[in-house]
C-alpha cells in the first residue's frame, strides 16, 4: 500500500454535501443534553475537568494540613479531622486524580494521535466517566460532614476493621473507591482495543507514537494490578459487614495479606501514573527539539520493562514488617533494577534535546518538561535510597518517604501534566494558554515545590514520622516544617495562577493547526469528526516526513472522507501492521450510558450508607439501562463500503478480528487476575495458619462426589453452549433448539454453583468460622459473581434470538457469552481443584 501524491485514495473534488453529512453525524448534543454526548473530545473535557477539580480539592486539603503543621503543637485542625484529611488527600490524589487524569488524557489524545474518529467503545467511555464524576465528587464531599475515611490511603487492617473503625467512613473508601476502580478498568479495555485496533493504515506498532505505547502498557498494567486491590477491597468490606475473618489474626487471618494485595496493586500504580506522563514527555521533547526522539526502540523496551518489573517489587513497601532477609534482598534488588528503564528514558530525552535543530526551544511546555526532569531525577535517586533495606528501616513511614514519593509523583506526573496542558490546549481550545503567565506558573510551582519538599528529606531523617497531626517543639523539626509550609503556599500560588489563566483563556473548540510544528497526527486539522479523512502513515512523524499530508487529509483525499453508512464510523486495522480490516459503525449520543452510570454510582453509595432497598432498586435500574444500551449494539452485517483507494471493507465483524472480541478477551484477563489474586490469598493464608485448614481446623471437606458433580455440570454446560454455537441458524431463520441449549447451559452453571455451596454448607463449614472457611466461601462468591453476569448476558442473548437478532453471521453477542462462559468454567474447574484437592494433599 504505497501511494504517491498523484494517486491518493480518494479523488478531488469531494462530492457535494459529504462534509455537511459528516458534521451532522458527529454533531455534539446541545444544552443540557450534553451529558448524552459520547464523543471523546467532548467527554474527555468533562473527564479531565473533573480530575483537575479533584486535584484542586485535594491540593487545598494539603494546604490546610501544611498550615496545621507550620508550627509545633498547633491546634488549627484537630486530630480527627486531620486524620480524615490526609486519608482523603492521598486517596483523591492517587485514585481520583492521577489515574483518571492520565486515563482522560488517553481518551482525549489517543484517538487524535491515531487519527481515529473516536475510541472503539464511545458509550463505555461515557459510562466510565460519569460513574467517576459522580463517585469522585461524592467521595471528596464526605470530608465536609465527618464521614470521610481515616485509615490512611492504604487502609491497613486491622485499623480499618469494624472493631477499630466503626461508622460508615471506611465503607466510603471501600465501596466508593471500589467502583471507581471498575471505571478505570473500563477505560483500560477501551485503551487496549483503541491502540491495537484503531490505528490509521500503515501505522505499524513500531510507528506508533510513544504515548500510544505508554498508554497500551498503562492499560495492560491496570488489567493485572487493579483486580488485586478490588479483591482486597471486597474481602475487607465483607469482613467489615459479615465478619468473614480474612485479616483477623486470632481467627487464622493475617493483616499482611491486605498489604501484599494492596501493594501488588499499589506499586504498579505508581508506574501506571508515571508511564503515560513519560510518554507525554517523549512527545513534547521531539516537538521542541524539531528532531525525532533518539532511542525510540530503547524507550519502548524501557516502558515494557518498567511495566514488567513493577509487579516484582511490591514487598519494598513492607521491608519493616519483619519478613525474612532473603526476601528483603530479592525485593531490594528488583527495586533497584527498575531504576534502569527510567535512566534509559532520561538519557533519551537529554540526547534528543542535544540533537535539537538550532537550540532546544524554551517554551512553557519545555520548562515543565525540564522541571520534571530535575524533580523526577531526584525522586528516582531517593528511590534508590529507600530500595536499600537498611536505609528504609530508618526512613520508612517518615517525612523522608513523603518527600520521596512527592518528588516521584509530582515530578513524574504533575509537571508533565502541566506541560501537557500548555502543549495540547491549542488542540482542543480556540486559544492557547498564556506563554507569558506560563513562565510565572512554572517558576512558582517549581520553586514552591522544591522549597516545600526538599527540606522534608531532612525532617524525616531527624525523626518526624508521617501522618502526624502535630509534633512537639524543639525536636529540630520546627524551622523545616515552617519552610515546607511556605513552599506549599508558593506552589499553590502557581496552581492558582494557572487556574485563572485556564478560566480566562481556555475555550473548547477547534484550535490552531500545529502551533509547535510537531510531527504527529494529533496536529492534523480537525473538527468534531476528528480528521476529515484517515491518513496512510509511512513514518513515525508523518507531518514532518509526508509533505502536504495535512492539506490532503483536510481535503478528504485519504480514507473514509465522509460517512459511508449514514452514521458514526471509524476504521479498524490489524493489531501489528495496521492493515485495514473493517469499518466500525459507532453509536452516537444517548441517555443509557449516562443513566446507567448514575444508577451504578447510586447503587454503591446507597449501599455504603446501608440503604439496602433503594440500593438494590438502583442496581436493577443500572442493569436495565445497560441492557437498553447493549440492545442497539451488534447491528449485524451491512453492505461493504469503499473507503478509497479501491479498498472495500465490511462494516461488521465477528470472531477474533472484531473489536468486541478483543474487549471480551481483555475482560477475561481482568477476571483471571482477580481470581489469581484469590488463589494467592488462599495459599498465603494457608502458609500463615495451616492449622485452620480442613480437616484439623475446620470440618472435613464434602465427599468427592460433590465436586465431581460440579465438574460434570460445568463440562456439560460448556458442551451445551458449543452445541448451541454449531446450531446457530442461517440469516433470517430461527433454530428452536438454540435458546433451550443456552438456557440449559446456564442451568448447569447454576446447579454447579448450588452444589458447591450446598456441599460446604452441609459439611458444617461457615464463612465466619476462620480464615480458611472465609477463603472457601470467597471462591464460591467469585464463581457466583460471574454466574450472575452470565445469567444476565445469557438472558440477553436468548432474547436476541427470540427477536430474530441472532444468527450465524450476526453473532457478536453470542460470541461474548460463549467466551465468558467457557472462561468461567475454566476458572471454576481450577477453583474446585484447589479447594477440594489442596487440603487433601497437604493433610
Amino acid at each position: 500500500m504505497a501511494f504517491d501524491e498523484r494517486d491518493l485514495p480518494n479523488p478531488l473534488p469531494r462530492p457535494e454535501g459529504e462534509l455537511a453529512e459528516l458534521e451532522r453525524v458527529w454533531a455534539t448534543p446541545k444544552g443540557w443534553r450534553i451529558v448524552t454526548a459520547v464523543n471523546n473530545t467532548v467527554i474527555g473535557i468533562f473527564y479531565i475537568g473533573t480530575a483537575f477539580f479533584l486535584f484542586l480539592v485535594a491540593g487545598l486539603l494539603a494546604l490546610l494540613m501544611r498550615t496545621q503543621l507550620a508550627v509545633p503543637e498547633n491546634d488549627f485542625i484537630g486530630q480527627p479531622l486531620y486524620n480524615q484529611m490526609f486519608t482523603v488527600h492521598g486517596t483523591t490524589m492517587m485514585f481520583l486524580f492521577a489515574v483518571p487524569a492520565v486515563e482522560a488524557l488517553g481518551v482525549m489524545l489517543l484517538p487524535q494521535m491515531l487519527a481515529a474518529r473516536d475510541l472503539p467503545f464511545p458509550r463505555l467511555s461515557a459510562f466510565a466517566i460519569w460513574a467517576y464524576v459522580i463517585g469522585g465528587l461524592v467521595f471528596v464531599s464526605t470530608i465536609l460532614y465527618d464521614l470521610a475515611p481515616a485509615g490512611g490511603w492504604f487502609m491497613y487492617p486491622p485499623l480499618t476493621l469494624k472493631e477499630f473503625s466503626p461508622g460508615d467512613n471506611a465503607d466510603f473508601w471501600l465501596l466508593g473507591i471500589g467502583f471507581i476502580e471498575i471505571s478505570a478498568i473500563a477505560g483500560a479495555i477501551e485503551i487496549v482495543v483503541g491502540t491495537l485496533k484503531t490505528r490509521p493504515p500503515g501505522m505499524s506498532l513500531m510507528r506508533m507514537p510513544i504515548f500510544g505505547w505508554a498508554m497500551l502498557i498503562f492499560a495492560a498494567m491496570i488489567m493485572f494490578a487493579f483486580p488485586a486491590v478490588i479483591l482486597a477491597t471486597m474481602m475487607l468490606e465483607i469482613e467489615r459487614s459479615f465478619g468473614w475473618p480474612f485479616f483477623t489474626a486470632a481467627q487464622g487471618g493475617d493483616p499482611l495479606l491486605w498489604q501484599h494485595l494492596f501493594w501488588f496493586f499499589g506499586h504498579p500504580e505508581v508506574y501506571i501514573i508515571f508511564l503515560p506522563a513519560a510518554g507525554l514527555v517523549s512527545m513534547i521533547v521531539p516537538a521542541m527539539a524539531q528532531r525525532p526522539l533518539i532511542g525510540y526502540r530503547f524507550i519502548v523496551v524501557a516502558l515494557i520493562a518498567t511495566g514488567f518489573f513493577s509487579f516484582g517489587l511490591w514487598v519494598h513497601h513492607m521491608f519493616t514488617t519483619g519478613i525474612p532477609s532473603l526476601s528483603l534482598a530479592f525485593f531490594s534488588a528488583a527495586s533497584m533494577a527498575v531504576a534502569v528503564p527510567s535512566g534509559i528514558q532520561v538519557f533519551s530525552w537529554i540526547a534528543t534535546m542535544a540533537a535539537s535543530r538550532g537550540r532546544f526551544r524554551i517554551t512553557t511546555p519545555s520548562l515543565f518538561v525540564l522541571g520534571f526532569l530535575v524533580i523526577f531525577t531526584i525522586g528516582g535517586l531517593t528511590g534508590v535510597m529507600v530500595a536499600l533495606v537498611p536505609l528504609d528501616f530508618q526512613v520508612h513511614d517518615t517525612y523522608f518517604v513523603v518527600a520521596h514519593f512527592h518528588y516521584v509523583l509530582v515530578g513524574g506526573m504533575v509537571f508533565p501534566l502541566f506541560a501537557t496542558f500548555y502543549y495540547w490546549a491549542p488542540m482542543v481550545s480556540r486559544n492557547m494558554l498564556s506563554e507569558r503567565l506560563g513562565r510565572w506558573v512554572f517558576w512558582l510551582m517549581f520553586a514552591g515545590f522544591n522549597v516545600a519538599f526538599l527540606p522534608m528529606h531532612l525532617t524525616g531523617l531527624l525523626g518526624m514520622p508521617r501522618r502526624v497531626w502535630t509534633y512537639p517543639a524543639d525536636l529540630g523539626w520546627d524551622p523545616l516544617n515552617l519552610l515546607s509550609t511556605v513552599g506549599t503556599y508558593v506552589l499553590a500560588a502557581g496552581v492558582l495562577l494557572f487556574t485563572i489563566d485556564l478560566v480566562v483563556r481556555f475555550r473548547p473548540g477547534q484550535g490552531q493547526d500545529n502551533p509547535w510544528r510537531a510531527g504527529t497526527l494529533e496536529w492534523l486539522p480537525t473538527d468534531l469528526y476528528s480528521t476529515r479523512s484517515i491518513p496512510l502513515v509511512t513514518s513515525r512523524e508523518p507531518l514532518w516526513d509526508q509533505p502536504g499530508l495535512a492539506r490532503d487529509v483536510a481535503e478528504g483525499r485519504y480514507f473514509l472522507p465522509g460517512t459511508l453508512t449514514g452514521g458514526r464510523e471509524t476504521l479498524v486495522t490489524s493489531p501489528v501492521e495496521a492493515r485495514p480490516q473493517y469499518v466500525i459503525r459507532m453509536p452516537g449520543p444517548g441517555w443509557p450510558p449516562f443513566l446507567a452510570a448514575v444508577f451504578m454510582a447510586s447503587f454503591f453509595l446507597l449501599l455504603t450508607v446501608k440503604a439496602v432497598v433503594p440500593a438494590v432498586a438502583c442496581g436493577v435500574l443500572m442493569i436495565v439501562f445497560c441492557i437498553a444500551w447493549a440492545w442497539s449494539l451488534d447491528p449485524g452485517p451491512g453492505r461493504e463500503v469503499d473507503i478509497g483507494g479501491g479498498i472495500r471493507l465490511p462494516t461488521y465483524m465477528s470472531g477474533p478480528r472484531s473489536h468486541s472480541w478483543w474487549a471480551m478477551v481483555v475482560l477475561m484477563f481482568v477476571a483471571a487476575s482477580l481470581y489469581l489474586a484469590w488463589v494467592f490469598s488462599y495459599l498465603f493464608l494457608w502458609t500463615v495458619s495451616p492449622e485452620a485448614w480442613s480437616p484439623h481446623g475446620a470440618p472435613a471437606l464434602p465427599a468427592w462426589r460433590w465436586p465431581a458433580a460440579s465438574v460434570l455440570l460445568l463440562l456439560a454446560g460448556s458442551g451445551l453452549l458449543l452445541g448451541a454455537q454449531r446450531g446457530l441458524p442461517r440469516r433470517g431463520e430461527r433454530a428452536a433448539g438454540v435458546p433451550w441449549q443456552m438456557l440449559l447451559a446456564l442451568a448447569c452453571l447454576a446447579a454447579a454453583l448450588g452444589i458447591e455451596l450446598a456441599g460446604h454448607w452441609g459439611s458444617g463449614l461457615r464463612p465466619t468460622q476462620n480464615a480458611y472457611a472465609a477463603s472457601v466461601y470467597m471462591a464460591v462468591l467469585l464463581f457466583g459473581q460471574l454466574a450472575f453476569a452470565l445469567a444476565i448476558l445469557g438472558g440477553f442473548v436468548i432474547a436476541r434470538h427470540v427477536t430474530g437478532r441472532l444468527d450465524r453471521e450476526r453473532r457478536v453477542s453470542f460470541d461474548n457469552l460463549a467466551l465468558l462462559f467457557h472462561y468461567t468454567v475454566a476458572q471454576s474447574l481450577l477453583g474446585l481443584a484447589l479447594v477440594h484437592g489442596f487440603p487433601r494433599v497437604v493433610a
Partner: protein
Amino acid sequence: MRPPGLRRAACILAPVLLAAGCAGVQSALEPAGVEAVHIDRLLRLVTLFLALVFAGVLVATAIALAGPHAWREKLASEHLVVHAGMVFPLVALSVLLGYGIWVMGQGGSAQAGVGLRLDEDIAAAFEALPASGLRIAVTGERWWWRVEYVTADGRRFASANELRLPVGEPVPVLLASADVIHSFWVPKLAGKLDMIPGRVNTLTLEATAPGVSRGQCAEYCGGAHALMSFFVVAMPPAEFAAWLEREAAPAAEPATRAATAGRRLFMTHGCAGCHAIRGTVARGTIGPDLTHVGGRLSLGAGVLPNEPQAMARWIRDTAHVKPENLMPPFAIFTDAELRDLATYLEGLE
C-alpha cells in the same frame, strides 16, 4: 558521631526538659546505637554518591540545552542512552546493593520475626530466645507501649512507655501488637520494625553511649497516632543494674498524708480497674502499669512532662491532652483530690 554538646548534656541531666523535647533526641543522624551507626554511615556514603550522579545529569542537561555545538553532537546519540542510561546504573546499583545487603547482615540489624502467631503469647516468644541476659517485650497498644522486662535470672515484671537499656549489651526486644499495626522506632538506636497482630518480631538494640533517645510510633495506627511516643534511656551497666533492682521491686508505701489519701482515691475510684501498682490491690491490666510511674520521663506516652501538675491535668483532662485516647476523663475529682492523687503517683519512683 558528634561529641555530646552542652545542649545534649543538658538533656541528659534534666529529664524534665525532655517531654518538651530536645533537638536531635529523635534523629537518625545522631546515632547512639550499633545499627543506627551502620545505617548512618551507609546513608552518608549513598547520599554523596547520588548527589554526584544528580550533578552529572544536570551537567548533561545543561550541555544539551546550551552547550557548544560539538559537545551537543557528542551527546545526541544512542550511545548516551546505552552508556549513561543502562551500563552505568547497572554497575553502580549492583555495588550499592551489595553494600546495602552487607549492612543488613550486620549483627545489629532488625531480625525477622520469630514467626509466632495467633497470640500475644510473649512468654512463648521469650522461651525461644537464648535465656541468658536481659530481654524486653514491647506491645503496641492504642496509643501507648506496654513493656515487660525479663531479667537474666528469670524475673519478669511490667512497665510502660519507657525503656531502659545497659550500654554495650545487645538486648533483644520482642515486638507485638494488642490491636492494630504499630511500628517501634527509636531512630538514634536502630531502624524501625512493625508490631503486627498475630506476629512477634525481634529487634536487637545495643546502645553505644549513655543518653536519652526518643522513639515514636511510625505506622499510622489511627486516632492519637501522633501522640504515641516514648523515651529510651541508655545507662552505664552498673547504674542500670541498680535501676533494674528498683524497678523490679513493688511500689513504695506512701510517705505523706497527701500521698496516702491519693492512694485511697486511686483504689476506690476505679483507677485500679485498669492500672496495676505492684504491692497494692491494683491489678488492672487494661492500661499502663503504674508501679514506678513517678520515675519515668514522661506521662501519656511522651505527651506531658512527668510532674504533679501535668499528672493532675492528665487525669482530669485526658481527652483534650490526647484526643481519642481510651482512658476516660475523671472529672469527678476536686482540685484537692487531684493534688493528692498526683502526689501519690508522682511518689511512685
